[in-house]
């Protein structure tokens, strides 16, 4: 019985964690697939989202949802500027330049976060109506995490429908498949990149803010979580929506299970499994070999 209870809470927590990981990482997968740009600074947008929501709720007294949407919009806008001013200059550059540039951005973000919020971890205080527990199937679950799962599910559904059904989605899929061809039939890929980048960053901000209760906000967040975002994207496959979804669920549940049952090994198994998987399929589970 105790085993079963452990299993249920592991699955629940892993699901919440996986959902957050997915919302943060999906933008990274799409932008990397679109532009072939190695953006290690993606976690910066997630951190910005988390900190902004906490500020909005505690300093400005905004309600949770309003703070969430505002910070998402702010981060999306800021990332659009960054993309136009800096990222776009490096699309043709080598991998090393992109890696160095984005690490530089992380350093800057870490410094700014430390100046603004100090070095101690900051957690989000859930809104009142999401405090406490909700009873479901005869068991009780933390309401806030339940809300995180539901909210993420809605986002994911909206995103998938958007990419499958809208004109923008068709253009993105075309550009991922064959950028030169997409350009030659008149798709403005530059604008497409900017919009997609902003959307991905906005989603990362939402994910960071939603997950601020699972992953504490610290100034070194973009460095510490980077490996997880990259694992999700690389085992899922670049440029896909479903790949990182599977990756995020695997990592979310796997990592939670390892920490619950074999805490003495830390994150060892997650890394080992990632290595094994990448050796078997270097392009990721759903990625296509180039």
């Amino acid at each position: 019985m105790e085993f079963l209870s452990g299993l249920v809470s592991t699955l629940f927590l892993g699901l919440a964690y996986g959902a957050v990981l997915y919302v943060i990482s999906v933008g990274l997968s799409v932008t990397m697939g679109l532009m072939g740009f190695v953006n290690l600074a993606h976690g910066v947008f997630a951190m910005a989202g988390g900190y902004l929501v906490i500020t909005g709720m505690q300093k400005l007294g905004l309600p949770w949802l309003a703070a969430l949407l505002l910070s998402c919009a702010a981060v999306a806008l800021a990332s659009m500027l960054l993309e136009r001013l800096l990222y776009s200059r490096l699309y043709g550059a080598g991998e090393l330049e992109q890696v160095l540039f984005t690490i530089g951005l992380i350093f800057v973000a870490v410094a700014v976060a430390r100046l603004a919020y100090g070095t101690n971890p900051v957690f989000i205080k859930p809104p009142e109506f999401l405090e406490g527990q909700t009873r479901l199937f005869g068991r009780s679950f933390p309401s806030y995490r339940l809300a995180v799962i539901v909210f993420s599910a809605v986002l994911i559904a909206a995103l998938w429908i958007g990419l499958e059904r809208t004109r923008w989605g068709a253009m993105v899929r075309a550009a991922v498949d064959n950028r030169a061809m997409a350009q030659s039939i008149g798709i403005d890929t530059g604008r497409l990149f900017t919009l997609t980048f902003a959307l991905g960053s906005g989603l990362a901000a939402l994910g960071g803010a939603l997950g601020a209760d699972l992953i504490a906000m610290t100034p070194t967040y973009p460095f510490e979580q980077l490996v997880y975002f990259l694992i999700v994207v690389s085992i899922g496959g670049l440029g896909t929506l479903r790949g990182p979804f599977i990756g995020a669920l695997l990592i979310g549940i796997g990592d939670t299970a390892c920490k619950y049952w074999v805490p003495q090994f830390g994150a060892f198994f997650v890394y080992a499994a990632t290595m094994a998987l990448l050796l078997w399929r270097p392009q990721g589970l759903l990625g296509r070999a180039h």
Partner: protein
Amino acid sequence: MDFARHLGAAEVGYGGSARLRPLEFLPWILALAVYFLAPSYLALGSYVLIMILFALSLDLVLGYGGIVTLGHAAYFGFGAYAAGVFATNATGDPLPGLVVAGVAAGLLGLATGAVILRTHGLALLMLTLAITSIVFEVASQWSSVTGGSDGMHSVPITPVLGLFKFDLFGKTAYLYCLAVLLAGWWLVRSVVHSPFGMALSGTRENDARMHAIGAPVYQRRLIAYTLSAALAGVAGALLTHTTQFVGLSVLTFELSGEIVVMLVLGGIRRIYGAFVGPIVFLVARDYLAKQSPEYWTLGVGLLLVIIVMFARGGILGLVDALVGRAAGRKD
């Protein structure tokens, strides 16, 4: 003009002459000058020398081999821990310790390189990160051997060659690091100038063409990776020997990132970039980071962005451009 040619020769692409140039004695003269003129800076000096050796090893894979890695601290840290464990359990004699650490890190480099060099791009980057994280986890959890998060304190190190005891002022430590760096520099310099070094540059510049002329690309890169890992391990062992301490910080992503920053700051793909970068970076950090760590981090970040946008050759690249322009005007 003469100066430009000397400096230019330091950035060996392929076929550069292997003959020593007068300017190449400068770093060693400077290093000795520091020993005699600035005895209170020897601890920092030893650390700079160690990082130069580490940066040299990285230049071999990142600069010449074009293998973008963010996990070179794995080999540095592995060497540091190997030296610590060896000194604690076998003998505190530093020279066998160096050999053991170099071989251990080299073997790890061979085993992991054989795996990661089969991939490229994001998967490769990801694997280098994952390997560092795995080594870190092992070092942090296997506390009976590694001391866990406390690290290994007061590692017993006996005098070098049984003659030179490590003193409180760091004099022996400094000269010991300098001697090992000299050997490491000579090795890297010879490798870069050798036909093997040219083949390695070839795999970076045009992988497909190297395959087409029948060059064993994978094997060349694996040898370079193993050699580089061994050198990084030796650098790590130097840190253990001179500080008599190993901690988890030698295995962090921060260190992997910092060493890349140092190399790029000095100038990648040139041997003396690995000298200039760590000196400038670490001396600046010694002054600035104590006063305001936040602004130091901010500065490093901005510096990286600026280097990528405007000065891809690093400091030596800028010097080259300036000297070249001055020489051009004279002609």
